[in-house]
């Protein structure tokens, strides 16, 4: 425990610090989607301020707003008493606001020293002073307590060590406000300890640290105060000494369930899919089954291995061991076409990267899986092609004037409908929906839930993957929880509480 929190209960040290940055009704919306609802919060000079929340709670939005990556749509950011624009990343850096991101964004082919001095190289007569920079970088790294070679290529270091280099780089140049986004995700215990030591030292030097993490134990070890975000709302701020993990978890999930989760009980039929000890890249030893009429939910944090598992069932990624049974028969699904032929459909996680051909017409997207069926002799029947596309557009209420509109011109909700329409058009027994409601407005969400109910009634089975707990919690007949590639819990409908499920997912 740091000195600050030890002194905590009576007068938290942070309370004595004056305000360095203040959010006044700061908000951000993308079209009708509220990513961050009006938030008011004051960060103090020389405090470690943790921010916790589920995926999609608005943490990344907040970071991007503070680092000038995106522009706010309302409210003010007050820096040292005056309102600032923060329109560009450079402006944020000029003020002394810096961030260390989850993924390292440095140049792998340059040396550690070159990365640290990137954009601020030491020159004499227009020539790089390489040796001097290496010596200086080594001095800085040693001073921070990092045992890293300044002359080595960045790419030759582990991801964790690269993260430390990124931290060193970000904490230089008069940084007064430093944001860490899940910095320990790839660090070993020892590296994490080095990082924490540096963070505390920066704090003692008067730097404000914003620390974003899923890991409760780190928050309690490191932070002076903690703020909780939920569904884009800043729920509250606590002094760390006056709260505990139970309260924080409750704040993270205790939401008003305003959305209506449309669920109909459908009698279960035969088992469609069963996996036995399935392993592959990103997941290990996963055994699940899906019956007709059943929604099987996968909950977990991003990167927990749920999507990797789904892609493996769909034949996109190879499995390394274990068995897949389809309708009771062992099958070896080696590619996507085979999975589709068996009767599996996948609405993948990323519409942009996996789900849609954005710069092509909606109609082409919807018909893409069935062009062999539309082909008579050598050519496609244009009339049939149009009919099939128009049917999905009408049935799903895709708001477009024409099937010829480009998929990219549609909103998130309509894009998701195109992805779903593509598979309704093709037909399947097992539908895998990976994060089907991300970036989708409330109205369309309800429509998607209704559609799932219809699919179940028609005898299909569904795997629903979601990082949004209420969604899987209210819809799944069986709820599996993933953490770091493993199944950490399997619960029948409403068998476990929200708190228990979240605990299984983040391993409190």
């Amino acid at each position, binding site marked *: 425990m740091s000195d600050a929190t030890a002194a905590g209960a009576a007068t938290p040290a942070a309370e004595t610090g004056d305000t360095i940055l203040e959010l006044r009704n700061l908000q951000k919306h993308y079209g009708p989607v509220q990513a961050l609802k009006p938030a008011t919060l004051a960060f103090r000079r020389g405090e470690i301020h943790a921010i916790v929340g589920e995926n999609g709670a608005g943490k990344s939005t907040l970071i991007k707003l503070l680092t000038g990556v995106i522009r706010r749509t309302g409210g003010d950011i007050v820096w040292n008493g005056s309102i600032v624009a923060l329109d560009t990343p450079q402006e944020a850096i000029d003020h002394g606001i810096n961030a260390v991101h989850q993924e390292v964004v440095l140049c792998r082919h340059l040396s550690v020293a070159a990365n640290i001095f990137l954009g601020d190289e030491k020159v004499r007569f227009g020539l790089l002073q390489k040796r001097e920079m290496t010596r200086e970088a080594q001095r800085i790294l040693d001073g921070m307590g990092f045992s890293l070679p300044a002359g080595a290529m960045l790419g030759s270091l582990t991801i964790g060590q690269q993260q430390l280099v990124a931290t060193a780089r970000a904490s230089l140049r008069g940084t007064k406000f430093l944001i860490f986004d899940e910095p320990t995700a790839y660090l070993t215990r020892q590296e994490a300890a080095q990082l924490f030591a540096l963070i505390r030292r920066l704090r003692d030097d008067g730097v404000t640290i914003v620390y974003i993490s899923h890991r409760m134990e780190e928050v309690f070890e490191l932070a002076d105060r903690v703020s909780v975000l939920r569904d884009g709302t800043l729920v509250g701020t606590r002094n760390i000494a006056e709260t505990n993990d139970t309260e924080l978890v409750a704040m993270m999930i205790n939401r008003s369930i305003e959305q209506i989760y449309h669920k109909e009980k459908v009698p279960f039929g035969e088992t469609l899919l069963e996996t036995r000890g399935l392993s592959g890249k990103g997941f290990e030893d996963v055994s699940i089954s899906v019956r007709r009429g059943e929604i099987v939910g996968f909950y977990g944090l991003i990167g927990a291995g749920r999507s990797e598992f789904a892609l493996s069932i769909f034949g996109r990624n190879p499995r390394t061991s274990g068995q897949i049974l389809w309708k009771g028969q062992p099958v070896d699904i080696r590619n996507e076409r085979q999975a589709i032929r068996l009767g599996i459909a996948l609405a993948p996680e990323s519409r942009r990267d996996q789900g849609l051909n954005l710069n092509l017409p909606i109609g082409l997207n919807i018909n893409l899986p069935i062009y062999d069926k539309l082909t008579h002799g050598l*050519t496609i029947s244009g009339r049939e092609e149009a009919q099939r596309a128009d049917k999905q557009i009408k049935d799903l209420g895709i708001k477009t004037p024409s099937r010829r509109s480009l998929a990219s011109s549609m909103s998130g909700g309509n894009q998701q409908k195109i992805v779903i329409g593509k598979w309704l058009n093709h037909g399947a027994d097992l539908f895998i929906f990976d994060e089907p409601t991300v970036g989708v407005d409330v109205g369309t969400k309800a429509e998607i839930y209704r559609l799932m109910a219809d699919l179940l009634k028609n005898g299909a089975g569904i795997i629903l993957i979601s990082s949004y707990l209420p969604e899987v919690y209210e819809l799944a007949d069986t709820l599996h929880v993933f953490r770091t590639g493993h199944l950490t819990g399997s619960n029948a409908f409403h068998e476990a509480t929200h708190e228990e499920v979240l605990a299984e997912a983040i391993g409190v």
Partner: protein
Amino acid sequence: MTTTTEVASKRAVAARRNYSFLFALTLLALLVLLWAILTFATPNFLTSRNIPNLLRQGSMIAILALGQTFVVITAGIDLSVGAVAGFSTVVIAMLIQAGVPVWLAIIMTLLVGLAIGIFHGFGITRMGLPPFIITLATLTSLRGLGLLMTNGATINITSKEFTDFATLEFLGIPSLFWMVIVVAIPAYIFLSHTRWGRYLFAVGSNAESARLSGVRVQFIIYVAYSLSAVFAAFVGVLLATRIGIGNATQADGWELQAIASTVIGGTSLFGAVGSVHGPLIGAFILATINNGANLLNVNSFWQRIITGLLIILIVFFDQLRRRNK
């Protein structure tokens, strides 16, 4: 709100359809304008000698550009088409001189082209090489191989039946131009009315999405490069009939003319945008500029500069329009 976005979107669709139509029309107008200017500028342009000549010259680049278009739609590029055409003149010359019947020699040459295309597909999908690299490698290798096979010499084709073909005319139109039509009609049906055409666009737009929709992405890559190489081999055959020789150094730099024609014709080098008529018109615009410059006694070095400027200009305006939407 819904109605306004709908109206805006409807307008966008209409604008886009009008746009691709207008773009084709603008290109065609540019071609006609060039012809009109040249007709007035020089008495030698609109003659029964020059026009067939121009058509013959443009035809071969047009067919190359058409094959190239399939590849570019998949967001790839084929730098080897000129070399494939040159190499094919050697192959067909050797076959005919060896006494192989002309029809069989043509089929065998096209099969050689197919093999080259399959090799490109293999390099891209199995070896993971960028299209630029693998086709650059065949560009230089095929020139070398062709020279090696002939020991650097030129093979004269003595079959009159074969070399007469290029000089034939049907309905007053040179045979080589008829070949463009013979190739373009199936190409149009293939690109616009078969599933393979749809898949080419899908792969060029987002290969991962296409794959997850059950499209055999690797096979489509093979198809695109095979078509391009077969078209190039076909151009090699036509070139051999025209010049009556087999020589591996022929068709030098034609790959750049083919790519230029494709791009002038509105094909996007980022993939998923392209047509059959675009590269054809593009090829004849380029041919007209070269022909006109010759007739006007413009220094041939200038022709190259003008061609370069034209590419920049047309593609720049096209990008400008796309960006504004």
